[in-house]
């Protein structure tokens, strides 16, 4: 047992879905167990952090790290596992691009704490208690890991060898990665495990020349099952999303949400969605354009649903703009006032 390469799986700020996705490689898991010494996975194994600290640097062959980085603990674990691992894989959307936790970057810490612990309609908290990083109680001082204002991705805090996107990643790509490691045929560092085309490549729907005159919400129309959803006015991020999932969402009549992130070569997937979708609007005056864009509420939410933390702007602005807290202002007026003309 001792001679086998060591494998670690860690979850930072994540939902646990990535661990389940690993099980979806079915019987291949047995080969993995044969080949690797499975030393760390807080979700299923009772190994402690001290066990990892006790290892030599670089003693772990591969660490599959899922989850975003948003607390001091996440960072410590990322740095620790980086030090101890030869290969660190950003596993799943949270670790590669921020994913749902990254949406917290539309707010700041204070707003989030207030909403989650005080203002959410489902919360009863008349004393207004919110968690603190340190508190003195009768038994002594209690500490919680520091909670960040901004969610980061794994590669924004430590160097990463490979990326395996998806929320969660598809089994075939997990297999491909594991097999590559087992076969000792590692791709060059920086590689994203997946395809470099977009979801459209895998999507069987029939596409036509694009022209959008209205965006529909999914509940507003019953889409033709054979035609491109975007052609029918349904938002679909497939045009700017890395293929690899087999066009899962479009095949069940839902527009792609973009969990695989932008494809190879694209720096900011949201910007590309803006460019592509705006280009094909069927409007030639500011008024007509506004009319169509009014049918697409929350554009930033659509375009940066998975990638906000890894996008170029990374988060909403924290600083004051004209003496007002911008984030708060945005919350009240989610859309640009259509009267503001160029």
């Amino acid at each position, binding site marked *: 047992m001792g001679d086998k390469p060591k494998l670690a799986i860690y979850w930072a700020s994540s939902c646990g879905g990535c661990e389940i996705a690993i099980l979806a490689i079915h019987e291949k898991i047995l080969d993995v167990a044969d080949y690797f010494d499975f030393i760390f996975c807080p979700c299923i194994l009772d190994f402690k952090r001290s066990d990892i600290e006790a290892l030599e640097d670089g003693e772990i062959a591969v660490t599959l790290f899922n989850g975003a980085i948003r607390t001091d603990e996440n960072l410590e674990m990322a740095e620790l596992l980086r030090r101890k691992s030869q290969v660190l894989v950003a596993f799943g959307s949270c670790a590669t691009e921020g994913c749902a936790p990254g949406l917290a970057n539309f707010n700041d810490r204070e707003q989030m704490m207030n909403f989650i612990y005080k203002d959410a309609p489902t919360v009863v908290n008349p004393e207004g208690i919110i968690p603190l990083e340190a508190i003195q109680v009768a038994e002594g001082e209690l500490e919680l890991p520091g909670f960040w204002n901004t969610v980061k991705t794994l590669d924004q805090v430590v160097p990463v060898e490979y990326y395996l996107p998806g929320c969660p990643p598809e089994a075939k*790509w997990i297999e*491909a*990665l594991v097999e*590559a490691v087992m076969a000792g045929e590692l*791709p*060059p560092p*920086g*590689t*994203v*495990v*997946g*395809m*470099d*085309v*977009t*979801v*459209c*490549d895998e999507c069987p729907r029939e*596409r*036509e*020349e*694009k*022209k959008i005159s209205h965006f529909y919400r999914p509940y507003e129309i019953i889409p033709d099952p054979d035609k*491109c959803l*975007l052609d029918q006015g349904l938002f679909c991020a*497939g*045009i*700017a999303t890395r*293929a690899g999932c087999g066009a899962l969402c479009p095949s069940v009549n839902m527009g792609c949400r973009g969990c695989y992130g932008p*494809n*190879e*070569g*694209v*720096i900011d997937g949201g910007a*590309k*969605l803006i*460019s*592509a979708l705006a*280009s*094909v609007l069927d409007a030639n005056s500011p008024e007509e354009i506004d009319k169509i864009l009014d049918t697409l509420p929350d554009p930033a939410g659509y375009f940066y649903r998975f990638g906000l933390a890894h996008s*170029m702007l990374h988060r909403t602005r924290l600083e004051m703009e004209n003496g007002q807290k911008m984030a708060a202002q945005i919350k009240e007026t989610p859309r640009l006032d259509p009267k503001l003309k160029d």
Partner: protein
Amino acid sequence: MSEEEKIGVYICHCGHNIAGTVDVEGVAEWAKSLPNVTVSKDYKFMCSSLGQELIEEDIAEQGLSRVVVAACSPHMHEPTFRGACSRAGLNPYLFEMANIREHASWVHQDDGEAATEKAKSIVSGAVSRARELEPLEPFRAPIDETTLVVGGGIAGINTALEIANAGYKVILVEREPSIGGHMAQFDKTFPTLDCSACILTPKMFDVGNHPNIELMTYSEVEQVDGYVGNFTVRIRKKARMIDVDLCTGCGDCWERCPAKVVDTVYEAGLGYRTAVYRPFPQAVPKYPVIDTESCIYFKNGRCRACEKFCPTDAIKFDQEDEIIVTSVGNIVLATGYDLFDSRRLPQYGYGRLANVFTSLEFERMTNASGPTDGKVLLRDGVTEPKSVAILHCIGSRDKNTNDYCSAICCMAALKFAHLVKEKTDAEVYNFYIDMRTAPKDYETFYNRLMQEGTHFIRGRAAEVTDAARKPEEVGKLIVQAEDTLIGKQRRIPVDMVILMAGMQPRHDSQEVSHRFGIGCSDAGFFNESHPKLDPIATMNAGIFIAGVCQGPKDIPASVSQGAAAASRVLSLIGKGEVEIEPVRAHIDEDRCSGCRICNNLCPYNAIDFLEDLAVSRVNPALCKGCGTCVAACPSQVIDGQHYTFNSIMSQIEGLLWDVRPNGEEKVTFQKTEPV
């Protein structure tokens, strides 16, 4: 690879133009610190032969792989320095120009420090961009020797004759049944008072009989595809309802035709024509057309008088439009102008007050073959006016209509004043804002008119009214104007008013400019490539403009421009092939996912969707390099040559050299292979 580039930076003083404001030595010294810069110099005049040699020497001796010249606008000297690079063996597309004159020294003359800082940013941006440039080769294509000339007015006629006389084929397309244009409507031309028909008719005849000219009248160009040297045009030949092979132009048909209508085109609304008609006796070609809208047979199925009387059975009521698709190498647009519609200024009474005429109506009136046989008469067709007012600038130099000067009206007004004097005893009053008589011999004509006793009143007329205030005004048209030379309001009662209506772009000039892929000014005149140095070419290579479609001008100017357009065409034909700028889009088909976002965006239909491969492809011959598809491609697999994603991203970084966050990692992408 960009890490190994050797960049040479040259800062031009441009005499005092740049160096007077920007610290050019300082910028050159500072530029040495930029990454990859191996040479950085300043020089008095980079565009001089010595300046260019400096670059050539450094390329040879220092092995420069990129060159940046910080000087004037690339629209001025980019070709110059590309040439220098080329001579030294460096691909000309590895040259980048930094515009520190028009965009820095000249606009920040009051603040040398700010201008110098800005110049640094511009240079830094250019260096960063240069690092990412890639060598390109221009496309070469052979030139089709046939030329299309659109418009058979004097400009188009002259263009066609110049090219045809040089031995090359011309297709001349004219919308009306005859060539001749506005000039054919005039009687005399200023300032020489030459008979317009006498000088135009021979040229029209030459066009009609030239072995190298294929004349298509009553025809319009419907579609244009392709690029310089290789255009494909689709021409609609409207049905004349006349078999021109049989017709002899004898005139039996129009003499017998019972349908009379007001001729709003050739006679400018002042005379009549029949439903089957030849616009005027000297028309080329001589064949008539049937105007199906006013023809009694086409309206209610009876008549056919023309058919009965035609000696050669040339009338063909069932003739249909003909579509001709042909290829041409160059196109000259000489589509002319529309007259400003004077009814848009109701205060001058045109259409309300019988004896208010437009300038074109008056042209027809004074024409010996016109509706009054050349007599100057009031609308009743009998009375000779005793006094005539000529109002300048109707629909010109007026922000409510057209703010530009129509250039010819002052001279035409002088000509009219002379003709009125010549033909009647009337007093003539010219109401003008400024007299504009610049070209050769025009001022002499103005002086002559002053001696002839024409009254000149400096002031734009406010209104023309029949509301009399005094007994002597009763029954007259009263022109009210402020005489700005004496500072008084004046009311001049006259019998006849002539409105010098301005020149307007053709009503469909926007549409036509789109069809031919050229630009249009705010007003609707076609945009030239350069207002000073290239007023003949357009932004679309191989398409030239001549005559008033480019801007108001008189006959000699139109003739000159037509000849100039012909010489441009001939020099291209003589060269035999064209070089096309390699600024083009290219789709990486291996990575294209076929989402079809780009398909509809190309104004030139250069993007085809290949159904079998489910990918899109750019036809490089049709692509003009605008980059719209490049920016729109959601998966960034379309590359815009010379304006690549990396080159622009890099230029942004360079421009922001002083405000970029320190130590922040550069955002780049590496192409990596999937597992």
